[in-house]
Every structure is written in C-alpha cells, then in structure tokens.
C-alpha cells in the first residue's frame, strides 16, 4: 500500500528554525550565520566586527565547533557574551542546538547575534537555523577557484567576505575571475575585501551589517539609535 507523506525530510530542523526566527523577530535581533572553511578567519572576522559595532549594538556570539571552547573563550575575553556549541563530530549546526544556546542568552538584550558555524563549506548550507542571512568568508590563500568547487554556499550567501586580502601579492589569486564566478552563481551578492586582523575593509562590511540590523529593528518596531 502506498502512503503519501509529502513532508520535508528536515521537518524537525525547519520547525525549530521557524520558532527561532519568530523569537528573534519578536525581539528585533538580527541573526547572522557565518560560514567558511576551517582557518578562513571566522573568529577573527567576528572579533573585528565586534570592535567596529560594539558601541552601537549589543552583540552576542554562538560558536559552533566539533570540540573545544577556545573560540568562545576568545570572544568572552572581549567582554561579549558567547556560548559554545560542541557538535561532537557533526559537520554542521542544527536549529535545535541554536535554540538551546539561545536559552542561555538574554535575548532581549541583544541586537546582533552572530552564529559561527562549523568550518565546512558543504553541510551547513542545507540547514536553516532561523538566521536572517548566511554570510560566507573565503580567504585568499584558499584560491579563487573555490566557488567552482562549492557553488551552493556562494549561491546562498547574502554577502561574501574575501578575507586575508592583504596576502593577495603572495598568492596566485585571480580576483577578477573570482568575482565573475561569484556573480554567475549569485548575481547580486556584495563582495567585501577584508583583512580582519589588520582592520582593513572591516568598516565597509560593518556598514552593510549595520543596515541589516537597523531594518530588523525597524521591523520589530524598536527605535533606532
């Protein structure tokens, strides 16, 4: 006997994601899901972003790693609330993990929540966490051909950060080709050249982010500062 189901395989994940998003929207929190390979500079980008935006917005961070809490410790050293999620081997974060992490934060006291996903360019792209934007970091040493190999993540990102931009002279990175492939995958996505640890290009990225935070606050009817 045939039984029709017609339901999403990731039903459970999507349900928690929708609940998360409703909670974030209610409190006017803008939530960023940051994706990159291991070593591309996710934590450095978060620290650089905090440095630029901390006077304007209340920021919190959820750190996703397979093991250890070194990243969360780094964030906390800067006086920013951070929760570590250890996936224990899993290659991506799921929405129920975010829910449990959010329960430990004062959500009403946050304007920007940054989720650092597990360093991986494949699996996290299929999982909605309840975020408002997925942003992808590519670092120059990884090569300009990454979008050919991992197209989906570039197609889904709402912004692309090209990190370690200061190392451009040492690597054979064809920026024109990179931008062209990215455009073919995602015609309207902005690309931000940045050297997070050198404070280069961070302001432009932070402005893009600030605009998104402001529109999220406006939607939740929270006065802008």
């Amino acid at each position: 006997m045939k039984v029709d189901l017609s339901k999403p395989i990731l039903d459970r994940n999507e349900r928690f994601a929708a609940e998360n998003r409703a909670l974030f929207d209610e409190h006017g929190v803008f939530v960023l899901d940051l994706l990159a390979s291991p070593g591309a500079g996710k934590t450095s980008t978060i620290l650089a972003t905090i440095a630029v935006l901390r006077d304007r917005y209340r920021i919190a961070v959820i750190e996703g790693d397979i093991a250890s809490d070194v990243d969360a410790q780094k964030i906390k050293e800067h006086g920013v609330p951070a929760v570590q999620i250890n996936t224990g081997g899993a290659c991506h974060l799921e929405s129920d993990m975010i829910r449990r992490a959010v329960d430990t934060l004062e959500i009403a006291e946050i304007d920007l929540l940054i989720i650092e996903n597990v360093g991986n360019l494949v699996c996290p792209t299929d999982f909605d966490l309840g975020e408002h934007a997925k942003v992808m970091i590519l670092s120059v040493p990884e090569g300009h051909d990454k979008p050919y190999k991992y197209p989906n993540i570039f197609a889904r990102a709402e912004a692309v950060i090209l990190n370690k931009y200061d190392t451009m002279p040492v690597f054979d990175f064809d920026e024109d080709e990179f931008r062209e492939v990215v455009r073919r995958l995602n015609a309207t996505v902005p690309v931000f050249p940045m050297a997070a640890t050198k404070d280069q290009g961070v302001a432009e990225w932070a402005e893009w982010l600030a605009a998104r935070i402001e529109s999220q606050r406006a939607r939740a009817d929270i006065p802008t500062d």
Partner: protein
Amino acid sequence: MHEMGIVSGILTASVETAARENATRINEIRIRVGELTEIVDDALHFAFEALSPGTLAEGATLVVERVPGRSRCVECGTTFNHGRFDVECPSCKNYFCELVEGRELEIESIDIDLPDETEAGETS
C-alpha cells in the same frame, strides 16, 4: 557527510508513518532531492544501508528523484530550468530570478505491507 542526518530524518518519518498504519514492513521509500542541495546519492544509499537494518525499513528500496533547478524571472515572468551556474533569464537575459524549485528535500511517499496483505505484497 550530513547524509547520515538526512537519512535518519527519512527513517524517522517513514517508520512513524508505517507504524501508525500497523505496517509489517516498508518496501519502498520515495524522496525528492533538489539539484541545488548538497546531497550526494551514493552517500544517501550508503547511509540508508547503514541505518535501516533493525527498522521497518530494513531491506526497503530508497528511490531518489532529482528535481532540477527552476527559476522565475522577476522582470518578464519567464520560468526556466537551470544548473547551479548562470541563473539567467533566457528571454530577457536578466539575472534577477526567484528560485521556484531545486532545493527540495522531501519524503514523497512510502510503500508498505499491511498485516493482511503481507503475502500479496511479497509475491507482487
């Protein structure tokens, strides 16, 4: 390798449904997977072989239907199929297009044996 998680989602939903129908076994599970997801068929089948034994879906066939990418042009309304690259309207060459299909990750249906039709199911 998030296919393990995907397959455990498939199994949970299928086995729950089958159990609700008092099924004795699941013969076939049909799923729809969009071409624009990061799902690899081989990994799906591997995970299914690893996770299905001991459940009602042991020995079942996993049928994967691939759904091509399909978008609608925001300017002229043309709907067209495409791969991962160059999602460009074939009529007006516009890049502003909305994805209509291609990210599916869906269980379509299951085929089960009920207690009174077990024999018929096995011989058909």
